[in-house]
């Protein structure tokens, strides 16, 4: 899946598997959770790719593995062509600077004992990018706060509990950007914010991307947000990527039946596709037991015999549009 411009993608995930061992009950047997199961995806420099999926799909695990918060079971991740799991410590330190993450919960991701100033300057101190000079540090924090639309004079000395959810998220963004990353992974950055605040943060992220020439991996369960902010969307289900396409193409001409189900589940609209999903077949939130063949087959209204036997591969079915389905939609 080479990037269209021909230049090397900023991030390349190849055949990534992240499995967790879990014990059922106190004396129960060990089971394996297939959180990320053979995922291959690339992100081109300067693009915003949204990763869409429900809980348990593996999207957060994938994100955390990219920033090396998880160890992979097998597979590779290349950042600017370099294998991130075969790095020297110096190279890892560079990675930790250039690839940043913004988390979902603005109430958990800031240290409640640190002021906004301390929160923003701390990463620079850890990476040895600032001197003890107070003026220098002030200048950096001021610049970052202005960048995210917060007034330095009133906000610099505040503690997180004195800020609103939206403001905290802006501080988290400022902190992430203070190290001058080129890849930002945002894991549901607006899901926990009030509706009227979300748009402001989304617009901020868009502006910053242009100004600072960033690349985003944007994780969300909200298709509306994914459509608004990204040019390309990848859909994850049960540890696998089931469809990747340009945003409008995915929404208007989905190929995979799970994508179709997601679109049909958008509430409050007359425009969604009509799907008769099986209500009584419960989605196994138990990730230790993936269905045979295509993982979506127990819930798929179009599943045929082949689907429970043969796992479909993610292939390019149309220009720039990939799907892993034995009997894709006509589109």
């Amino acid at each position, binding site marked *: 899946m080479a990037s269209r411009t021909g230049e090397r993608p900023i991030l390349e995930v190849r055949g990534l598997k992240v499995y967790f061992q879990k014990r059922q009950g106190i004396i129960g047997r060990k089971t394996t959770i297939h959180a990320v199961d053979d995922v291959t995806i690339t992100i081109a420099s300067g693009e915003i790719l949204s990763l869409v999926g*429900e*809980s348990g799909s593996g999207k957060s695990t994938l994100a955390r593995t990219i920033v090396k918060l998880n160890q992979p079971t097998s597979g590779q991740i290349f950042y600017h062509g370099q294998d991130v799991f075969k790095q020297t410590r110096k190279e890892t330190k560079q990675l930790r600077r250039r690839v940043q993450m913004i988390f979902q919960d603005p109430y958990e991701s800031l240290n409640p004992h640190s002021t906004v100033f301390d929160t923003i300057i701390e990463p620079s101190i850890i990476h040895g990018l600032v001197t003890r000079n107070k003026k220098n540090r002030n200048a950096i924090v001021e610049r970052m706060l202005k960048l995210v639309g917060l007034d330095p004079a009133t906000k610099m000395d505040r503690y997180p509990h004195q800020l*609103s959810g*939206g*403001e905290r998220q802006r501080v988290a963004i400022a902190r992430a950007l203070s190290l001058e990353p080129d890849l930002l992974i945002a894991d549901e950055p607006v899901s926990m914010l*009030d*509706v*009227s*605040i*979300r*748009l*402001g943060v*989304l*617009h901020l992220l868009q502006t910053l991307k242009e100004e600072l020439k960033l690349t985003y991996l944007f994780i969300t*369960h*909200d*298709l*509306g*947000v994914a*459509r*608004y902010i990204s040019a390309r969307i990848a859909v994850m289900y049960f540890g696998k990527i089931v469809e990747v396409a340009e945003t409008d193409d995915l*929404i208007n001409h989905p190929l995979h039946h799970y994508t179709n*189900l*997601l*679109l*049909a*589940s*958008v*509430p*409050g*609209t007359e*425009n*969604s596709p009509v799907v008769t*999903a099986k*209500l*009584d077949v*419960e*989605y196994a*939130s138990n990730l230790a037991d993936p269905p045979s063949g295509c993982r979506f087959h127990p819930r798929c209204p179009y599943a045929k015999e082949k689907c429970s036997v043969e796992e479909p591969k993610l292939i390019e079915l149309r220009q720039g549009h990939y799907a892993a389905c034995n009997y894709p939609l006509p589109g």
Partner: protein
Amino acid sequence: MIPQAVLNHETAPTEGALVEVKNLSVTYKTRAGYTKAVDDISFTINKGEVLGLAGESACGKTTTALSLIRLLGSNAQTEGQVLINGKDILTMSQEQLRNLRWKQVSLIPQGSMNSLDPVIQIGNQIVEAISAHTRVPRRQAWEMTTQLLSSVAIHPSRARNYPHEFSGGMKQRTVIAMALALNPLLVIADEPTTALDVVVQKQLLILLKGLQSKLGISFLFVTHDLSVIAEIADRIAIMYAGRIVEIGKKDDVLKHPSHPYTEALVNSVPKVFGDRQTLNSILGNPPSGIWPTGCRFHPRCKYAFELCKEKEPQLLKSKTGSQAACHLISANA
């Protein structure tokens, strides 16, 4: 201040109105002082209708919902009237309340799927709810339970499971089954689908709507999610800073909003389908506890003018037939 009930507000025929809330105010006593979380609101819920109550954090919607079943804590002072089937629940005795709760009015609280007892089988929890409020014998209660579970698309054989063996969606359906167990007239649902995945949410909303129309139950559906409200509600009330700023039929409120806040809210939700939009964010934050002077929305309103800072607008009938509290409406009248 003229009570809203006296003004031109929406008059549903009293025969059709199951719930009549009149000048409801709730003040919380906190360490920081007194906060009026709900400030003089009035609305009705008709028989068999779903009233959606929408708003962001600290707008007072959960407090309003809980006051309808008188479940606010002891630090809450409630004023006004809440008439259910003509009787004011705010003046009822504990005995009368016991007869009301679960039988006439039931509640699906926020995060309720996480408050199922982890050490009791699902079926037994429903039976317990039935037994606590009726004299139905245990065997009959079990029969009712299996029927209830079927009605929410859970196979009766799963009544012996424990909550941890259920998915989030199934737990939520269990809680809905419990709330419907005694055929109440009114169900108060506080963010019943918020923690659920979108596919499960859709299934649940279809289920709720089906049960609601089949059984003729009225719903007060509280949520911050406008798309969910668009899916399920017949009428919508929008709350902001403890007040109702707009109330009317769903399509009127969402497609032709009369209040600037409603308009801004509707326009700040990115849509999945349809033309690409340029959306505009609303400046500022929703207030919490300390309300601005005059119209509480004025600091964030793009149409605000002098009067808005000084005088609080009352709910008046707008061009679309909805009620909205905005000086622009009286200006155009």
